[in-house]
């Protein structure tokens, strides 16, 4: 076990009127528990609104859960901000438009003191090389790159802190079909090369099947099914999983 979610719930209150009274409660996540083995990939699947992104944000502590805790194996994850990284869905919004690629890559290296100032450029070049981006990208701005290239740069930034675990929040769903498969293969290669653990979030079961060892199905913020990838594909026990499978086969 490297990461474990214990009874996580997240409620958003809806405030209304002049006095900001609570007029409603959205239960984005309800009693979600699971654990992830080191070097494995956990697929999290569900339609939009099922709480996938909320879960991702809670796991990297960009958001606090209303109830429950996220536990880490202290021997594997000692510095949380370094050992756990996230890649977001929209590559057009996840790179600072005013920052050159090299500065985007230098930032994590400098924050975690992973490179001496003289080595920064070499390190950044290595990172870009690992994700298949030419090193002349260093001096350019995000606007000069396509969605797929940007997502590769986002992955390079996540790799910069030498993480143990990366949360991939729908990393390919805003990209062209032709690029999607290349990116998935890149992610698989990187996982081998850097000994990573993935939490792969997607609405597409085919993608999950390609990537994940075990799977967790979310519906309306609750886990409706979880277990080994192959077993669930062969014998889905929940009607919601079945319907997801049917739409994936189409």
């Amino acid at each position: 076990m490297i990461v474990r979610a214990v009874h996580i719930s997240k409620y958003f209150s809806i405030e209304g009127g002049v006095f900001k009274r609570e007029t409603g409660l959205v239960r984005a996540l309800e009693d979600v528990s699971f654990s992830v083995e080191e070097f494995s990939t956990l697929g999290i699947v569900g339609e939009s609104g099922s709480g996938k992104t909320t879960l991702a944000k809670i796991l990297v502590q960009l958001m606090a859960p209303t109830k429950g805790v996220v536990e880490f194996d202290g021997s594997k994850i000692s510095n949380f901000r370094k050992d756990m990284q996230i890649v977001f869905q929209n590559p057009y919004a996840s790179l600072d438009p005013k920052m050159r690629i090299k500065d985007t890559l230098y930032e994590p290296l400098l924050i975690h003191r992973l490179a001496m100032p003289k080595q920064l450029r070499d390190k950044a070049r290595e990172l870009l090389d690992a994700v298949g981006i030419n090193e002349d990208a260093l001096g350019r701005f995000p606007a000069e790159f396509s969605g797929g290239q940007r997502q590769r740069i986002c992955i390079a930034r996540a790799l910069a802190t030498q993480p143990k675990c990366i949360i991939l929040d729908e990393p390919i769903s805003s990209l062209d079909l032709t690029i999607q498969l290349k990116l998935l293969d890149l992610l698989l290669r990187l996982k081998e090369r850097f000994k990573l653990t993935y939490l792969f979030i997607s609405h597409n079961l085919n993608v999950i099947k390609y990537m994940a060892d075990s799977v967790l199905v979310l519906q309306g913020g609750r886990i409706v099914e979880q277990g080994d990838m192959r077993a669930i594909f062969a014998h889905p026990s929940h009607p919601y999983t079945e319907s997801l499978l049917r739409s994936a086969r189409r």
Partner: protein
Amino acid sequence: MNKLLLVGIAIIGFLSAAAILAPFISPYEPSLIDSASLLMPPSYAHPLGTDGLGRDLLSRIIYGARISLGIGIIAVGISLCIGVIAGSVAGYFGGLADSIIMRSADIMLCFPTFFLILATVAVLEPSIINIMVIIGLTSWMGIARLIRSEILSLREREFIQAAKAIGASHYGIICRHLLPNALGPVFVNATLGIAGAILLESALSFLGLGVQPPVPSWGNILIESKATLGVAWWITLFPGLAIFVTILGFNFIAEGLRKHWGYNA
């Protein structure tokens, strides 16, 4: 670069150069009294004429540019510092800090600024530094509001979340990610602010509470012209024209920057 921006930069560049090089390019000492040439109309010896004490108007306007532009730029510099810090703290941290800062801004906006400045200058002495500081301290609210709203909309963007995820500090996120993306519209606003500050200084000087004679500022040259307006039109026209052209220049720059960066504010 569009034409508007170029023209604006040319105007302000020319005026700034004149202000900086004042001792070298002004034909006379600005406070040199020459009783032989009182109220002389524009001529070869005095291109813009002389005033009631025989001082050369061109020299006084060139030296006045130092005071007027200096006050405008430094006052706006002060209000930028306060506004940017207040606005980013309010927008980034939200909650109580936001409430306190923005309510103080609201309170400041409730005062009629001009009378607040008048009263303060009347109590303190109307020195150039006091005027700069007071204008700066009473004009940061617009900038703070602008920065706050920019940061509120940027704060939830994914690249800010990503910066948090790689472990950037609050300071790092504000200075490295939020401000570079939020400052564009603020610079446009600040450029207009310089024009406003110059006008404000002129108005204060006109009421006798601005820069004190014999130091020339465009505002106090104007007030001195009042007595002789019937016989010496040039003393009123040229400093007025200087103010007009300067404001126009800063407005051109602001408008040009806005178009250049593509804002719709």
